[in-house]
């Protein structure tokens, strides 16, 4: 029975650390709660972040996966944790900016969460097969206008962030497409390449280009990884606020600790290994501190409320 002995050791160690450094933050291991399963793009970035963050904050940092219920379980756990900076949320924006518009009850209140820093972005791209008759995004829009609802596209789920984002683009383009949900992106790629579906709205990291051909990236500025792919904004269909995210803490956390976390986050963000992982997964973005992050979230929330209203998604 090795496990109980190890557990005992760990308990003794944490009790000791607690008494020795009661005044100091961090006084015990920091939990970075990620609302996805291990291996997800956000999870991989969280792990690269944690590697550097632990030396910047001067303590142990553990990544904890609490997936499920569109990330609301994870956000609820952080909102209701002791506000001492030892339980943090590392994830995207949807739990704060989309779910409140979809549901009557949440396991947390938006006001219970304080954003600390924005560190990553999950851009979405419009992907077709290489020999698709739709050579440009304008071709797709044209096809959609000629046969409203007949051109089909695959995405991760009805009412998901990419759905709302692309629906806003379609509304502005005065066209209508047939949305087909793919719980699992791994089934969408073969369907696109084999011509069973016209195009996909896919998250960076879930496709390879080539073989997939990209017609547009749903973004304002061109993405450094695909410099020759036009953005939706360039094409005249601005797609505000996709998926972005970073680090959050319970709102009641003492100000000095929040400041300490923000400073450590900015230094971590600049580390070469963190930047490389962001680049490799296509999740790189410009850094924002707590104030900028909060502004982005507020704007995004207003945008999502509008999209939910336009789509007439039933709130339950």
């Amino acid at each position, binding site marked *: 029975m090795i496990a109980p002995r190890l557990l005992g050791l760990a308990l003794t160690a944490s009790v000791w650390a607690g008494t020795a450094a009661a005044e100091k933050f961090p006084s015990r291991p920091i939990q970075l709660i990620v609302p996805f399963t*291990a291996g997800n793009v956000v999870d991989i970035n969280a792990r690269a972040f944690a590697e550097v963050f632990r030396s910047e904050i001067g303590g142990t940092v553990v990544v904890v996966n609490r997936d499920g219920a569109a990330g609301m379980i994870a956000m609820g756990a952080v909102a209701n944790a002791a506000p001492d900076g030892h339980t943090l949320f590392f994830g995207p924006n949807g739990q704060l900016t989309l779910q409140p518009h979809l549901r009557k009850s949440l396991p947390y209140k938006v006001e219970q969460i304080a954003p600390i820093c924005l560190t990553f972005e999950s851009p979405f791209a419009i992907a077709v097969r290489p020999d698709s008759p739709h050579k440009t995004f304008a071709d797709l829009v044209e096809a959609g206008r000629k046969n409203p609802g007949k051109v089909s596209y695959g995405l991760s789920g009805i009412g998901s962030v990419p759905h709302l984002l692309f629906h806003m683009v379609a509304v502005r383009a005065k066209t209508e497409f047939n949305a087909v949900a793919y719980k699992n992106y791994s089934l969408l790629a073969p369907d696109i390449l084999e011509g069973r579906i016209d195009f996909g709205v896919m998250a960076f990291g879930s496709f390879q280009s080539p073989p997939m051909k990209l017609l547009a990236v749903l973004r304002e500025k061109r993405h450094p990884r695909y410099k020759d792919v036009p953005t939706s904004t360039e094409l005249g269909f601005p797609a505000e606020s996709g998926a972005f995210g970073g680090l959050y803490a319970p709102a009641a956390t003492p100000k000095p600790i929040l400041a300490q976390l923000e400073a450590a986050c900015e230094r971590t963000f600049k580390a070469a290994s963190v930047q490389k992982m962001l680049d490799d997964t296509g999740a790189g973005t410009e850094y924002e501190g707590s104030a900028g992050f909060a502004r982005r979230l507020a704007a995004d929330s207003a945008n999502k409320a509008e999209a939910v209203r336009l789509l007439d998604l039933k709130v339950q």
Partner: protein
Amino acid sequence: MEQVFDGLLLGAGVALQPTNLLYCFLGVLLGTLVGVLPGIGPVPTIALLLPVTYGLPPSTALITAAGIYYGAQYGGSTTSILCNLPGEASSLITCIDGHGMARKGEAGAALAIAAVGSFVAGTAATVAIAFVGPPLAKVASAFSAADYFSLILLGLIGSVVLARGSVVKAIAMIVLGALFGMVGADPTSVQERLTFGIPALQDGIGFVPIAMGLFGIAEIMVNIERATGRTMLGATIGRLWPSREHWRRSWRAILRGSGIGTVLGVLPGGGAVLASFAAYLAEKRVSRTPERFGTGAVEGVAAPESANNAAAQSSFIPLLTLGIPANPVMALMLAILLIQNIVPGPALVTTRPDVFWGVIASMWVGNLMLLVLNLPLIGLWVRLLGVPYRYLFPAILVFCCIGAYSTGGNVSEIWIMLAFAAFGYALLKLKFEPAPMLLGYVLAPLMEEHFRRALGLSHGDFSVFVTSPISAVFLALCAALIAALAWPAWRRRRETAFRE
């Protein structure tokens, strides 16, 4: 052909480097351990080790992760056979006859057949990846949503065959299982179903709590009630090694299981699960003594255990040849490669032949290590059955609770598991079999997802299920299977009618 041999030679050179051998061994050892522990699977293990792989050469990183994955398939059969505890869906079917063999005092034989079957399957799948990887990948991408639907429907109808007793009870169990599978978020949208506003049910009922409750814990309760002996099975441990008769019965099952597993493992999303079910059902259909199944037939262990191992390996094919990850483990492999600036896809074999062939060759090496590692462990595992149950049962319960908790980090999972344990106990008392229910639970949500997607793509036109040739063949097989099931009953009724 010559290219393949050159490639394998190059791969063997990579796989046999001392560091790679060491990492391969560490991978399969770790994989075996997480496979044995219920609820802790290869996904969290590989994710935890992800930062470690940054510093390794790409082939070493991938060899280690691959070792963990197929090592876990070896380990998974151990708890299924010994304690009736399926750690993941792909080792569920092994419980039925594997634990049946253990009850007959043939646990050692079951473990040995599972290990040898896995090795043969691993070898077959390695050869398949090397020689027919790209054409097999084409098979996977040829499957449309309608084809998946019909294949799963065939599996669901076939699972009626699993039932030993009443067919009506089996159908009732499958439907009930399907309902349990429907709990949680609608697969395509934000809507919730059958959650009764309980947050813990928003994501549905997890496989680990339902399977461990229904199988493992319910089994413990029945055992305590019987309390015939001091030990778990109340039976003698029996022989450690399979008899000549065991081998005679299982060698064909191993080969068939390897074949089915290699082909179905290529399918993205649930390939390994479907493969183990399909191999078991096929074995029962071709058997001249199908009535032995369910009571500890060795073919019922050999076929699914070979199939799930073959499938675990052939699920690498879409990743290595098309760059498409077929399951969460493959998504992690993709991440490992991307970190190393390697983009998997059709070009991988020419741009990084060392990685492509190194991984393939290491699979065979790793399988050999697993065989050498697992055969001596059998004695140890079987001796566990001799531990008095007042020690063993609490230990199993603790492991189940840890397993249920660790899947999502939520205490509610443990409560769900205990509820299903009580339910499973009632089922056993009322002579309802839990296996078809769990099959319904696993397959129905998959079937629904593909059904709705097929109709979404066809704009609501149902003819898509018969106009797609693959789907049409599966539907024809479904009809044939229903006819075969109904035929004996129909004939009996006619005979009695004549007599009257």
